[in-house]
């Protein structure tokens, strides 16, 4: 490579380059912003995300590889980047007032958020296992820190420690997997893994073990059973605004890597891996949904709900090895991630609006189901947003969650796994119980919920809820857009 190549390649990944540089500058600028005016940092961070979003969208349709095949810029990366950037914006919107009232506001919050999004965007575009690993770390480490940003609050510290230890453990699995794949094929680049596998002369045993370990590593990130143990504690202990961002961003990024690696590089292993994926998806849906029933704390309930949703998305991955279904696998998973993002932020924004510190004349922290009693009368707008989110989580029309689940189930049935589709359907029915319970509390119980009147929270809750409903009407073009994001080797 030469200097010119470097500039050309940096230009190819311009949104990522800009966002990284912006985050670095913001870190320095923030040092000179006085403590009472950290809103400026939040605004600047959001501005950076908007610029990156504009760049990503203006470059949609470009399909090329960059940095000697380390990165693939394609429809898939574009679609995922849009999801990440939107969740970044929503993440800032739900955090701004919440951080001030919790007394944990600091400029680094927004900087770390930006760096995490850089990692996620790299993850969606990475075409080399080494790059995937670095992206995984770059998206995770800021999240570990963000989970613990409320130090010295013990639950936040506990969340950070648990998340970090298990995350580091998962990274270890991912690295072992990468090493075995390298040993089996002689390369870490996805294209070369494919060419080595098709030309024979690879050690399939090592490749299978490597793929399995990679699956474990990424399975931790997206929280599929049995790698979900950390999720409830971390989601509950981390500051709610962090959890909201983490529940969407980290999961979407983990699935981005899973989809790209498996659909591109591991179809020859489908015989061995399909049963494993099947079992993972089935257990995740069942255990996530069943344990969620027992939760009275809304953050814990949403944590188990996020586990269950990882199971639904995992379902699409099961037929990844069948050439004619693989495109639908990617498209339906991407579509569902989009639906999940909007729905999740609607729910979390409401949760954050109701959360308050203990001891402000109240003996609850606003996080238990009882605290939602009477929300329907007192705050009809927020209650409506929460209802939409709950319906979308269950998969009831007219919401994006319904359309998303429809496409997922269609993919699974196309792939020839009606049993799994049935499990998905039945567990959705089970989930209706605990999601609707929230709605029942909001509308059918009397109570005096304490609600924060914070404009950005309201805006996020309502905008995402409206998005969930409106986009479900225009789901056809949206799904077509997702279908264009097929994974191809470049």
């Amino acid at each position, binding site marked *: 490579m030469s*200097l010119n190549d*470097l500039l050309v390649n940096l230009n190819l990944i311009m949104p990522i380059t800009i966002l*990284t540089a912006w985050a670095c500058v913001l*870190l320095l600028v923030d*040092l000179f912003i006085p403590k009472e005016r950290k809103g400026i940092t939040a605004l600047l961070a959001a501005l950076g995300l908007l610029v990156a979003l504009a760049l990503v969208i203006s470059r949609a349709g470009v399909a090329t590889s960059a940095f000697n095949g380390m990165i693939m810029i394609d429809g898939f990366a574009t679609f995922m980047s849009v999801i990440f950037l939107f969740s970044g914006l929503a993440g800032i919107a739900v955090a701004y007032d919440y951080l001030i009232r919790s007394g944990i506001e600091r400029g680094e919050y927004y900087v770390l958020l930006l760096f995490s999004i850089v990692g996620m965007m790299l993850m969606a575009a990475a075409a080399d296992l080494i790059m995937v690993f670095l992206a995984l770390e770059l998206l995770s480490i800021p999240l570990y820190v963000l989970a613990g940003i409320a130090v010295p609050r013990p639950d936040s510290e506990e969340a950070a420690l648990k998340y970090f230890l298990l995350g580091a453990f998962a990274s270890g699995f991912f690295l072992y997997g990468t090493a075995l794949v390298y040993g089996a094929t002689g390369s870490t680049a996805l294209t070369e893994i494919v060419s080595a596998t098709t030309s024979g002369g690879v050690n399939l045993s090592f490749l299978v073990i490597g793929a399995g370990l990679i699956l474990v590593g990424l399975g931790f990130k997206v929280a599929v059973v049995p790698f979900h143990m950390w999720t409830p504690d971390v989601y509950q202990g981390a500051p709610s605004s962090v959890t909201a961002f983490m529940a969407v961003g980290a999961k979407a990024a983990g699935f981005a890597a899973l989809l790209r690696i498996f659909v591109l590089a591991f179809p020859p292993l489908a015989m061995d891996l399909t049963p494993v994926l099947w079992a993972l998806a089935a257990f995740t849906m069942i255990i996530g949904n069943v344990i969620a029933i027992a939760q009275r704390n809304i953050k814990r309930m949403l944590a188990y709900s996020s586990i269950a949703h990882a199971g639904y998305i995992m379902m699409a991955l099961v037929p990844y090895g069948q050439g004619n279904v693989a495109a639908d696998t990617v498209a339906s998973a991407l579509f569902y991630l989009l639906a999940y993002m909007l729905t999740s932020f609607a729910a979390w924004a409401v949760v954050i609006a109701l959360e308050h510190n203990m001891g402000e004349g109240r003996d609850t922290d606003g996080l238990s189901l009882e605290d939602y009693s009477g929300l329907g009368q007192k705050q009809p707008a927020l209650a409506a947003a929460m209802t939409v989110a709950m319906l979308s989580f269950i998969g009831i029309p007219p919401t994006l969650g319904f359309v998303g689940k429809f496409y997922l189930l269609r993919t699974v049935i196309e792939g020839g796994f009606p049993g799994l589709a049935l499990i998905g359907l039945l567990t959705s029915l089970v989930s209706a119980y605990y999601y609707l319970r929230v709605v029942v509390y909001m509308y059918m119980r009397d109570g005096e919920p304490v609600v924060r009147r914070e404009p950005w929270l309201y805006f996020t809750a309502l905008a995402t809820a409206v998005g969930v409903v409106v986009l479900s009407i225009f789901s056809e073009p949206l799904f077509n857009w997702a279908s264009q994001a097929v994974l191809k080797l470049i």
Partner: protein
Amino acid sequence: MLLEYLPIAVLLILALLLAGIVIALGHMFGPRHPTERKSMPYESGMRPIGPGTRRMPVHFYLVAVLFILFDIEVMFFLPWAVIYKKLGVFGLVEMLIFIAILGVGYVYVWKMGALEWE
């Protein structure tokens, strides 16, 4: 191939032997009359109180973490320095980007007062 490192191995073995011999000689010929007072931990003549290990301020830890990070940075300089002539301006620019990003961290750490000892 490994023979290149023989001098290091010899040095290592010599150091171990020398240290071992000195300690052994001390043990063999040194007079030892232990009393209870003599085998007590030395604390400036005071009677020792409490356990030997104390909790240390978190600042030590912060310094150690920063040390590791800059240590890793330096590790990357080594391969660059070996071939910097071959890489030319391109390599210089690459390294400058690398240093600039870490320089941001350095300024941040400095401004936050992590390098000061209160």
